[in-house]
């Protein structure tokens, strides 16, 4: 394609793909475990049936939030590989993470390398993880005898209940319902503490800013980011946007005048949170926005904000601390 007018389209497309990868999805896939004999696993997840004679024991997790979910359940010894990082691994999970082979950090591993590893289950993070476009066609993986578990189904409306459901389903997959219960109890406790903290306080207007120079990409009302900001005692100024992430205009940002700007952080050199804050502060259009005037920025990692992960309550807590500082 050298010298062909595709360069600009490409950057647009890459941007969209990255954005879409940030988190989409909604809740259709329950995790109804059917009647099972002692050790066999029978699961249905995002329309995909998973049938295992034994609980999953050779598992590859394909996205960071999934890897961290499994590690948080204390099941790192069942993992034979992981791929893709959006942020630094959570410090509490780092030791466990380092024991699992990292297959590739920036792209999905190829289907043949995955089949070659001989996993019994692959766990994908997002609805389209298992797709031809990612080089992971579900039918070929299935034919190789691999179960496919997806954490966030395509078009799923994510809530904090989805997190509980996911952990429970993972517990069934690994035959470790106790571990799931424990993690859920811990996460619930953290969430309750956040809810107590913000109870009765007036919601603060928050802009959730992903990236964008000519036009900002922000979190809309249908994703997990919106839920977490609400939980942390905020109000997403773009909650009327009918998608999880979407593009709007700087004019609209000025008009809605957020009190705090939450900056999404993930690994890309030119797009670090620091650079994004600098950009927002130096933009003359935004000079009168309250958050910019008062220099109220909050940096949050994508792994805990845009995807179901054990960090979700922590992120809600981080937001609550910024919006409603305790004396």
């Amino acid at each position, binding site marked *: 394609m050298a010298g062909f007018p595709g360069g600009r*389209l490409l950057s647009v*497309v890459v941007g*969209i793909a990255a954005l879409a990868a940030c988190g989409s999805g909604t809740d259709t896939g329950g995790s109804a475990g059917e009647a099972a004999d002692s050790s066999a696993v029978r699961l249905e997840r995002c329309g995909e049936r998973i049938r295992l004679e034994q609980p999953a024991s050779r598992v590859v997790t394909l996205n960071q939030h999934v890897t961290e979910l499994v590690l948080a359940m204390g099941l790192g010894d069942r993992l034979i590989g992981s791929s893709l990082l959006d942020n630094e691994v959570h410090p509490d999970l780092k030791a466990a993470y380092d024991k699992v082979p990292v297959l590739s950090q920036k792209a999905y591993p190829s289907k043949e390398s995955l089949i070659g590893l001989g996993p019994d289950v692959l766990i994908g993070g997002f609805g389209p993880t298992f797709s031809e*476009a990612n080089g992971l066609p579900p039918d070929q993986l299935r034919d190789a005898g691999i179960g496919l578990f997806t954490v966030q189904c395509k078009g799923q409306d994510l809530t904090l209940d989805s997190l509980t459901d996911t952990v429970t389903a993972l517990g069934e997959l690994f035959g470790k319902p106790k571990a799931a219960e424990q993690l859920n109890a811990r996460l619930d406790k953290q969430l309750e503490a956040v809810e107590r903290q913000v109870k009765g306080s007036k919601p603060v207007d928050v802009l959730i800013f992903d990236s964008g120079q000519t036009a900002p990409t922000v979190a809309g009302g249908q994703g997990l980011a919106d839920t977490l900001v609400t939980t942390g005692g905020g109000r997403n100024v773009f909650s009327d946007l009918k*998608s999880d992430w979407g593009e709007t205009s700087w004019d609209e940002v000025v008009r809605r005048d957020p009190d705090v700007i939450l900056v999404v952080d993930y690994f890309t050199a030119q797009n670090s949170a620091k650079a994004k804050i600098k950009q927002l502060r130096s933009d003359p259009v935004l000079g009168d926005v309250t958050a910019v005037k008062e220099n109220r920025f909050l940096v949050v990692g994508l792994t805990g904000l845009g995807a179901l992960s054990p960090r979700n309550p922590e992120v809600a807590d981080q937001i609550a601390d910024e919006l409603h500082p305790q004396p």
Partner: protein
Amino acid sequence: MTRTETAERPADQRDAAGPTERLLAHGLVPLLVVLLMASAAAGIGLGSFHVPLEAVGRVVAAHLGGDPVSGPDVRYDAIVWQIRLPRVLLGALVGAGLGMVGTVLQTLLRNPLADPFVLGTSYGAGVGAVSVTLGASALAGVYTLSAGAFVGALAATTVVFAVAQAHRGTGAARLLLAGVAVSFVGQAITNVLVLAGDDSGGQAARAVLFWLLGGLGGARWTSLTVVAVATCLAVPFFLLRARALDALLLGEQTAASLGLRPSRLRTELFVVTALLTGALVAVSGAIGFVGLMMPLFTRLLLRTSENARVLPVSALLCAVFLLWADLAARMVIAPAELPVGVVTALCGGPVFLWLLVRRGNAATTGLGGGGAL
């Protein structure tokens, strides 16, 4: 090598190039066939996951003998028989097809810039594929996606060809311009579809990327059929018209005086190249560089544009090249993969530039001033 060509070359080159010339003239096609076999074997044996050689042998033997593969070999079977073999065959077929399409289009248009992608085909395919992804995501499987790309590729080529036909005899520039215009329109439509559509999960965006960069990873036995039939039918079709193509290259009047019907011949060849391109692009996406550069490379290598010789060499070279490019695409950042189009351009570009410097003279492309005819 014709006598005229030899006479045109400077005296010092004529003597020095003796053995090489003879090899190029007689031994190249068999050599390339052997090389193709070896490349295919490498493509099946190597990859991001190491499969022991004897396991590869067992799997292939089991399939050829009709025995079911069992036990621990099931994993190897999935990798060797379901993934690598169709992939290698697709690479060889697509490479050969693109090599022939490029050669024929460049001859028809008497322009070294002609290739199926410059003529708008890839964006046509992109529009088709994205429409299918967004419009019928429930149906979007290997077939529907390919069918969409196929229809889009054909539609784009038809428009370009119709525009060129509107004013007969106005030359190849019109066709190339029409191709570029169609590319822009296709690109715009694709962008609108992706930006305005409900692209939850970024499937369409990813599909667009795939069609633009091309890849052999989607190869299946089922999707191979169309490509195989198209390419295998195209080989004799083009070879039988090699002489006529040579005549067209000399000019329409010359061709007519040789008893050919140039306009009918051109229409026929355009339709066949469009059909073949549609079939290839539908499965492999727009793998750049190969169809554009390899025919030129072949003409430089052979120092002739005689199509009976250029066509088979270009087809074989492309096939071999694409197999190695794909292997590199699979290995370089293993276990992740690069799009093969990136590798083809990155590896092939510098070699081609070097060749241009080494042999760059009036007869650079064998098409321009007719110097090497």
